[in-house]
């Protein structure tokens, strides 16, 4: 552009615009020149970096601390009882004259309870997610999603309470058994408790499926339902798998609600109507008055539980990583 004189009283609007533009550019350049990064700014930058790092390390530190503590305090009892007797012993009688520390009933109860919750909760949660993500009108979707969020926010003691007052007597009446507090009651409560996380994560995964995939399917003459199940769900499968694993994690770690509805007796889970005790409740129900080897054995149970959860987390990470790819 040629440099031109600016004559405010002449009719040269175009040039005036150009001039204005140049002036603005100069002003911006000047502003940048005036503010080189000062030493102080660099220092602050570094400080903030360190602060964030420290905050991050707190979390990592907690995890490490818990792991180390659990391993250290969980190993002695396993050594003393013997890993086979401990893990595969069928009887738990910690306060007997001749105490027995077999936790197979707890392990199996936790596995059955979780599996049962998954068998009920996953189909229901999955179908709900498909409905919410693909079929529901926006209004229904938002109402139901807030209901699901609410369900997620209810404290587990409330689940336990409702289970105790409604589910347990219900089971007793419907199945005509002496006590309704049972594995079945725990499974049902757990199934309901894992619903929100399964629904929410699955909806997120299904919502993220590109619309182009669905359009392509519809344009080939597939019905909407065919499209959702043959295209959208497979495209979201790792997210849905992660949702299921998350549900497993919640179910296996839940203590309060199952303590209230499962009867909390250390039986082998031979039937759905057996009163049972979970790994989590095994720890919490005796911790208060335990001592000596009994207390150490409780730490060992916690360690076993911890290992289960680590395993589930590893699976979750695996699925989430897959989804990213």
């Amino acid at each position, binding site marked *: 552009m040629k440099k031109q004189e600016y004559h405010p009283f002449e009719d040269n609007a175009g040039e005036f615009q150009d001039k204005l533009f140049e002036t603005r550019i100069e002003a911006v350049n000047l502003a940048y020149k005036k503010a080189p990064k000062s030493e102080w700014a660099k220092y602050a930058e570094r400080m903030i970096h360190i602060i964030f790092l420290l905050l991050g390390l707190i979390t990592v530190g907690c995890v490490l601390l818990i792991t180390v503590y659990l391993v250290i305090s969980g190993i002695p009892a396993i050594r003393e009882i013997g890993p086979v007797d401990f893990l595969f012993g069928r009887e738990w009688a910690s306060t007997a004259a001749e105490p027995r520390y077999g936790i197979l009933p707890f392990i199996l109860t936790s596995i059955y309870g979780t599996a049962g919750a998954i068998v009920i909760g996953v189909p229901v949660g999955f179908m709900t997610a498909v409905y919410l993500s693909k079929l529901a009108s926006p209004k229904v979707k938002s109402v139901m999603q807030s209901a699901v969020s609410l369900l997620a926010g209810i404290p587990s003691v409330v689940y336990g309470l409702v289970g105790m007052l409604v589910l347990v007597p219900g089971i007793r009446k419907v199945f005509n058994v002496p006590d309704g507090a049972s594995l079945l009651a725990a499974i049902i409560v757990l199934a309901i408790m894992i619903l929100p996380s399964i629904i929410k994560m699955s909806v997120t995964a299904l919502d993220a499926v590109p619309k*182009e995939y669905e359009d*392509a*399917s*519809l*344009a*080939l*003459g*597939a019905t909407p339902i065919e499209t959702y199940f*043959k295209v959208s769900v497979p*495209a979201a499968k790792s997210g849905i798998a992660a949702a299921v694993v998350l549900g497993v994690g919640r179910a296996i770690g839940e203590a309060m609600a199952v303590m209230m509805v499962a009867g909390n007796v250390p039986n082998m889970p031979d039937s759905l109507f057996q009163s049972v005790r979970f790994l989590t409740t095994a720890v919490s129900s005796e911790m208060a008055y335990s001592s000596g080897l009994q207390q150490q054995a409780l730490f060992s149970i916690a360690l076993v539980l911890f290992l289960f959860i680590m395993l589930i987390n590893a699976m979750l990470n695996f699925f989430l990583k897959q989804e990213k790819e």
Partner: protein
Amino acid sequence: MSNIITVKDMCLWYGDHKALNNVNIDIPEKSITAFIGPSGCGKSTFLKTLNRMNDLIPGVKITGDIRYEAKDIFGRDVDVNNLRKEIGMVFQKPNPFPMSIYDNVAYGPRTHGITNKVQLDEIVEQALRDAAIWDEVKDRLKKNALGMSGGQQQRLCIARALAVQPKILLMDEPTSALDPISTSRIEELVMELKEKYTIVIVTHNMQQAVRVSDYTAFFLLGELVEFGKTDDIFSQPKDKRTEDYITGRFG
């Protein structure tokens, strides 16, 4: 030559916004018809009306008469899934499913009830051959389709559309995301396909319309301004607006 699609006095609204106004057009069978016009004039909208993909958008209202093989496409007895099977579509952005190449092509036939492996193999191979991509993919049919180049993906999408044996293929700017070599491959392909199929192609590329199409429709602001033989439209347009557009004076 008979007309496979006839449209009379068709209007379309997105809510309150009238996107198409009084469109009348007859699309001849086994030929290539190009839709041209500036951005936002309603080409995609019109294309998506023909296979009723607009039904999926809430708030769309359509009036007028659209006939495919003399049958009202909005008629009560029309199965929309069957209509879409007969009137296939290729989208602007290549959109293969995140599955293997084979499964992509087999998706349509499977959906329409073909389960026999031998039969499926045959259909998949034929579709891939028709889409001029068989030689490039025959050794990796089990590989994920997302690992292919954009041009290959688009030809795969064409193969996928062909695998359900449509009569019409609607293509919305199928080459706009592709390099010149892929583009010319697809243009050649389109010209071969008109032996068997009726093709409607939206394009912003005037040369492309001239190169491939037999008929051209010029849209402007939701109206069909002019429709006729491509040679006529580009050599002696009747409407001043068409002339302005094809000579690049606006748009």
